[in-house]
């Protein structure tokens, strides 16, 4: 049985000084680690909040979320220990070079071969000759490839990506998208992507549209 994230009748909102803004209500869905899922929708629909709730970063205002890993129910902390993230702004450590950034998750987990594994991944994403370059010396596409490799390098069960191609041109977006989906399938890792891009969403096994507080299967 694959690892899963069950969203059961979840609702969420946030409060401003003058009003309460409802994002969504009564959403249910089960995310599986053997599939890729895209969530699309207009700006402000609550896609990032949904992603945060699914990743165990936020607690929904209503409903509940169940995380299951290796057949057992786990808490959000354990879930996060088995997750990886890809961001729109890449968020590489500015003071580390490419290989240092890639090796970081492994080193944090105490892996002695962190740099060797990082070198293999660097080659995999086609940036072997950029190993000693700092983030500001890399293009946006190159930075995001490193960020993608960094998310996968520690072999998490789920990867959550928030607008991963939002800062890239169409051509670069496609190559980064291909890299993400290939890695996810190769590693048997669940991939949840929040995006505006229909092209990117079409690559996923399933695609959901979040609009006006409702979650629908996208055509």
């Amino acid at each position, binding site marked *: 049985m694959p690892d899963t994230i069950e969203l059961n009748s979840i609702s969420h909102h946030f409060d401003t000084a003058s009003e309460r803004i409802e994002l969504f209500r009564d959403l249910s869905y089960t995310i599986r680690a053997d599939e890729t899922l895209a969530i699309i929708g207009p700006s402000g629909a609550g896609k*990032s909040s949904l*992603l*945060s709730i699914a990743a165990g*970063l*936020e607690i929904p205002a209503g409903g509940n979320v169940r995380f299951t890993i290796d057949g057992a129910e786990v808490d959000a*902390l354990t879930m*996060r*220990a*088995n*997750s*990886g*993230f890809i*961001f729109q*702004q890449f*968020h590489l*450590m500015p*003071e580390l070079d490419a290989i240092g950034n890639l090796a*970081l*998750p*492994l*080193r*944090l*987990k*105490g*892996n*002695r071969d*962190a740099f060797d594994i990082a070198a293999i991944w660097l080659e995999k994403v086609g940036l072997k000759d950029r190993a000693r370059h700092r983030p*500001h010396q890399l293009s946006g596409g190159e930075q995001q490839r490193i960020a993608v490799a*960094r*998310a996968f390098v*520690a072999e*998490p069960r789920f990867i959550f990506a*928030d607008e991963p191609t939002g800062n890239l041109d169409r051509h670069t977006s496609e190559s980064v998208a291909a890299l993400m989906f290939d890695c996810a399938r190769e590693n048997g890792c669940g991939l949840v992507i929040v995006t505006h891009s229909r092209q990117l969403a079409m690559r996923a096994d399933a695609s959901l549209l979040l609009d006006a507080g409702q979650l629908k299967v996208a055509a």
Partner: protein
Amino acid sequence: MNRVKLVLENSWRDLWGGDGRISMATQTALLFFLMTLTLTSASIQSYLADNLDQMLGSDLVIESPSSLTEGDEAAFRSMAVGLSVTQLADITMTHKEEWARVQLKLVDDFYPLQGNLQIGDTPVATQRAVSRGPNVGEIWIDSRLAIKLRTQVGDNLTIGGTDLRLSAILFHEPDRIMEGHSVAMRAMAHAQSLDGASINSSKGRTRYLVTADEKQLQAIEKWSRQTLPGASVIKKFGGQHPLASFWQRTENFLGLASVILFFMGAVALDMTNRRWLAKMRYRLAIYASFGTRTRTAMLMALGEWLAGFLLSIALASMLAIVAYGLIVAELQGYFPGLRASWHVAPALKTIGLFFLLLLALQVPSFIQLSRASLLSLIRNPAESSYVWQRLFWSIASVTLLAAAYSDNMLLTGMTLMAIAAALTLMVVLTWTVIRLGDVWGRRRAGLLPFAFFMMRQRLFAKSAQVMGLGLCGLLLLFSLMLMRDLGTTMEGYGRSHDGNLMIAEAQADQVDAINIWAEKTGSSVRSMRPFVSAQLVSVNGKALSDMQKPSDTLATLKDPIRLSWTDAMPKNNRLDGGKWWSADTDNWRQISAESEVMTDMGFSYGDTLTYQIGGKPYDFKLVASHAYQPGAGSITFWFQVPLSARAQIDAPTRYMGSMELPEPAWDALAGLWQQYPTLSLVPLQELTERFDQTLGIVTKVTGGYAAMVLLLALFVLAASVSGFSADDRQKNGLLMSMGLRESDCLRLNFYDWGVTALIAAAGAIAGTWSAGLLIYQAQFNLTYNPDILWVAAMVFAMVATVCLVGYLACRQSLKVSVRHLMAT
């Protein structure tokens, strides 16, 4: 292992950033200062302890301003194994035309009880040990005195009309420890050589050296507390060196100085901390995105901070050891035989205290860090700046440190009050000026209104910057001003003092002799105030010897002081509180205390002060407090009682005052002294020389302190500039992308720094002014009279420095291309 390595790598990398370097330098400078102080102090403490073991000359010493009666002395003798009685007096010795103030010790046949005396035939002769003091009719003097009086072994010296033969040069006395840190010139004679009355003075002391077993010592100690109240008792075992409390007070004063330095360091660290925090939040959020638990990440952040701290310990220790060696070499003049050795425990204690203080400053950052969330990488949540928490922790830690260190709550309170007043003023000024500037500029075009608009946007950060710079300005200005004014006072001392010869002490019969001598030599007696020697022994029934707080005032009061009487308030005094007695009052048991003494000792009106005068106790009720005011002579007393009290007190009257001598009269002084050796006259020149020596030490200490203040002020300035460089780069980049020229950016930057520096300078001056008003008169007996030109020059220098540094930083940021600026 990988994590530890990562922690070390991160820490090392952070160290090479601007903030890392400033933070490291600040920590190192502060720790260096504290460690140097601790090591020096530990050396002196250990020196004093060794000194006590080796140099007491007996098992127990009791020293008292009054002597025992014959009966009491016999009882004392029966309680001890051995007893030696010595008398000490400050006299003036003469030889031909030469004269010198000398501490004369009159010894008996039993002296010394333990150890040996070291004597020789010339000041440079080989020393030999003898087990007895000089015989009757002989005198021994120390080598410096022999040189000063131009005399040699075999000469006759006259004291109080008695001729004594100089039979040896005295090098060492086994009970030398009781002289404390006195560097007075010494002489020793047999007690039977002189008529006791001829060397009586208010400062005369009787010293009893005792050998006894433990049980006898306890009984003697108990007995002496009843028979000789106010006597000081020094034990060889389990006792405290007489200098120990003096040194502790010095340490406490230096402690207060370090509190101020720490305050400045805290400002610099707080400025760098805010960027450190932003960086660490980002780092921890990214770690969280790999599944790293918050606890692990927090431990890593703590580890990174700790690694930096350990490095600063290493650097500070190395520097401190060098400085410690140099200071000990300098101090050997005051503490002969003092050595620089390792004192691990005190050093570790200081490091521990410093660690806790830094940790306290770091607490708000760690609390914020524990709330670092991965969500911040997905969206930009609103973040509070935690300014108040940071301010609270900073002020709380510094205040606690000040309270722990200070021996002078008045000075500490005044310092902190002046700082608090200046900080409040700066906050109010910043908010008012920037808000008003913003309102003024709303409907105006140009760079200045825009500068106000930008400052209004970052009002909190601007306030912190202004407070940091202003506080440094205040401390710097105050240190410099105090140094300058102490110097000026020193120079003006000769002019302001009434007369050129001070009568430090004269007995009643000597006053007549002085008047006759003055008439003969054409000198004039300018002032003469009577007093009796009195020792405060208890307050409201509580013995003064049981009070343990380290205080200069308390230490002074443990020795006899001068009690004067008057019905009218002296012209150089003013009533500070309470009610002064009416003339001819019958209620003679009233007393007025000097206001600072009152505050320091925590006296209240209505307290009963018991004095031991001429061997008898006298109670007085505290009814008033007086304070010194300049303009009518410099002699003032700590305690004054009604004129009617004099008739009730059974003790000899003594006088102090001043004289003006014409040039030819100086040579005739030796004759007066030969007749009255205890007559204590101090030429103004000698007084100023002594003052010069003291001032020399004070100048060295304050000079070193000012250098530390300046160094930390530079760190604060660097932290302040470095903190805003990222913001400035972004702002300048944006402005240039909108078509503004480089010169416009520079002008905008100049307005920004100019306003900051002006408000900071205004706060610094106001703080210095209030500190001057509060502290000068109360603590240094100086009238605060600010030199407007000097203050204006200082303000100009401060504003110019800040603007120049800001300008250089801005030029640096403008060198970067617009594209790069936009990317930051």
